[in-house]
């Protein structure tokens, strides 16, 4: 299979869906002439024109809310917000409006709205440009949350989001944009929501890894294999809905579990997953559930501090050793 980057895979998904359905359009700050600040929509203006690839003023509440309004009357907007941190500027439209529209209206509202957002620390971008806000929204029923870790998943999940009928927060990790991998060319290739991917099979420890922590967990698994610790790596791919079955099945096999994400440890995605496992799989566990995540401080600027705060391969290795020794 041909290999393309995560960024190209996302562009391909958007372009295919825009060719397939005229209701799909892309809107956001600098998505058109500039091609997106991360370059993801580079070239799309030339193909689709400025009506369907739209630059906007710097007005997140209006951009997100306009996406919602257009969705409510039958369009399928893809809204790009260049940093997940800026979601807060349009927070009401996400949390109080989009997420609740279907339920509050007694099921009358259809909300095919995709919010493409970046997460993660790109390096010395400091506290307002480095956050991983997935779990801020996990506490809000009504919104789906995807966090792909590979180019193929990025393409397949994005197409599912765009074709769906619910608002989706689609988190793209900034440090994954350049990563390449095999991606199907089939224009109808999709990846369903709520289906975790067992990325690597193992016997001793399960690592449930979100987004960028998947490649880090795989690197940790290689190191641990050399020590005789066999690691299973699972990527939930969507946090809402969450594929509990695959996670529990793995824990039943290994009896040990680590949850790794770049978000802060406190109330990060791991808190929900850990609570779910404690409620539904405690009988399989031989040790504590360990969360690997950013320390509970704002992301610092200085690389020394930032590297210390962010979770790394070594944190997963240390946690696995601890569990394996029990």
């Amino acid at each position, binding site marked *: 299979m041909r290999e393309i980057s995560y960024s190209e895979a996302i562009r391909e998904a958007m372009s295919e869906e825009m060719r397939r359905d005229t209701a799909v359009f892309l809107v956001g*700050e*600098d998505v058109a*002439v*500039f091609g997106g*600040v991360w370059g993801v929509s580079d070239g799309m203006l030339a193909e689709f024109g400025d009506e369907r690839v739209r*630059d*906007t*003023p*710097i*007005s*997140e*509440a*209006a951009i997100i809310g306009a996406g919602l309004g257009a969705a409510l009357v039958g369009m399928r907007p893809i809204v790009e917000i260049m940093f997940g*941190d*800026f979601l807060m*500027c349009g927070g009401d439209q996400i949390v109080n409006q989009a997420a609740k529209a279907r339920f509050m209206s007694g099921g009358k509202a259809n909300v095919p709205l995709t919010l493409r957002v970046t997460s993660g620390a790109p*390096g*010395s*971008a*400091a*506290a*307002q*440009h480095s956050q991983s806000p997935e779990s801020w929204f996990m506490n809000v029923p009504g919104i789906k949350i995807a966090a792909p870790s590979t180019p193929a998943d990025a393409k397949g999940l994005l197409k599912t989001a765009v074709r769906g009928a619910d608002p989706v927060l689609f988190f793209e990790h900034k440090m994954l944009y350049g990563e390449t991998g095999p991606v199907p060319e089939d224009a109808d290739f999709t990846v369903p929501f709520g289906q975790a991917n067992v990325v690597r099979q193992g016997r001793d420890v399960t690592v449930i890894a979100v987004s960028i922590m998947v490649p880090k967990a795989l690197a940790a698994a290689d190191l641990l294999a050399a020590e005789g610790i066999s690691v299973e790596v699972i990527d939930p791919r969507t946090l809402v809905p969450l594929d509990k079955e695959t996670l529990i099945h793995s824990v039943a096999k290994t009896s040990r579990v680590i949850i790794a994400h770049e978000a802060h440890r*406190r109330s990060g995605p791991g808190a929900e997953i850990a609570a779910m496992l404690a409620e539904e799989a405690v009988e399989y566990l031989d040790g504590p559930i360990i969360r690997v995540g950013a*320390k*509970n*401080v*704002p992301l*610092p*600027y*200085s*690389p*020394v*501090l930032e590297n*210390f*705060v962010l979770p790394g391969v070594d944190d997963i290795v240390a946690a696995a050793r601890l569990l394996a020794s029990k």
Partner: protein
Amino acid sequence: MDITHYSHDLLAHLFQRMTLVREFELRAIEERRRGLIPGFIHSCVGQEATAVAACAALAQQDVITSTHRGHGHLLGKGGDPKFMMAELAGRSSGYCLGRGGSLHIADFDLGILGANGIVGGGFPIATGAALAFQMRREQRVALAFFGDGAINEGTFHESANLAGLWKLPVIFFCENNLYGEGTPQHKQAPIADLARRADSYGFPGVSVDGNDPIAVYEATQAARRRALAGDGPTLIEAKTYRFRGHYEGDPQVYREPGEMAAWRQRDPVPAFRARLLESGLFDEAQLVEMETAVQTELDVAVAFAAAAPLPVVDEALQGIYAETHEGLVF
């Protein structure tokens, strides 16, 4: 405009600080290229007159909120290039102990409530500071710097309305450099003179030549007088241009042909220099002396930053809350 009735000190201050801002930016860009500075820089080269002259019209006790393009504002308000350079280098002797970087430099002693990584993040903060000054009957104003792009954030409109309604001593100072990132102003707003927006919030808006420090100084002084008299806010739109990319490394595909060359003719630093000479108030030797002093100050700043200690990792866990609670886990 004749400048001979302005004090020698004021004119010297404007020239010295504008030169400092220009040269600080060029040094920072250079040091980033050489690896001393790890993070992004949004330089304000070309916008020295707005930053410096607006701050020159303020008093020591006044406060500002700054932006992602904030180095000029900070230096204008009296920021020390040593501590700024050290912050950009991520050192623990920097203004924010290396935690904040370019986007978050603050110095509350100088009335700098902070640069900001969030476009439009400063409007409500400046408004709130002005509210406090009004409530405490203090002779102080708050000035919010922002760009032509930021004026389209909801925070501008909510803050302007509140400030207009309560007649708060706040100055909304727009540096209109014609672009927000890669999008030109005419694709972000359907009106050319952003100063008109003040009208709907019940206070005056003025457009001035942002490359003329005297025009900026006059407008800001008038706004400050108005604010202190209890008459409420002013919106100042200073028209200017940035000579470098939105950030260092920006390919700048979006510029209109010929636009840069036209604005280069109006480069605020050499233009003001020529004016000072023309006025007869300064001679070449005096200006060269000031320029040389700026270079020396920046040599010191870069050396200070390069020699400053890097933070030790435990520092990352401190200073999140005012108090630490023994036994409680953060």
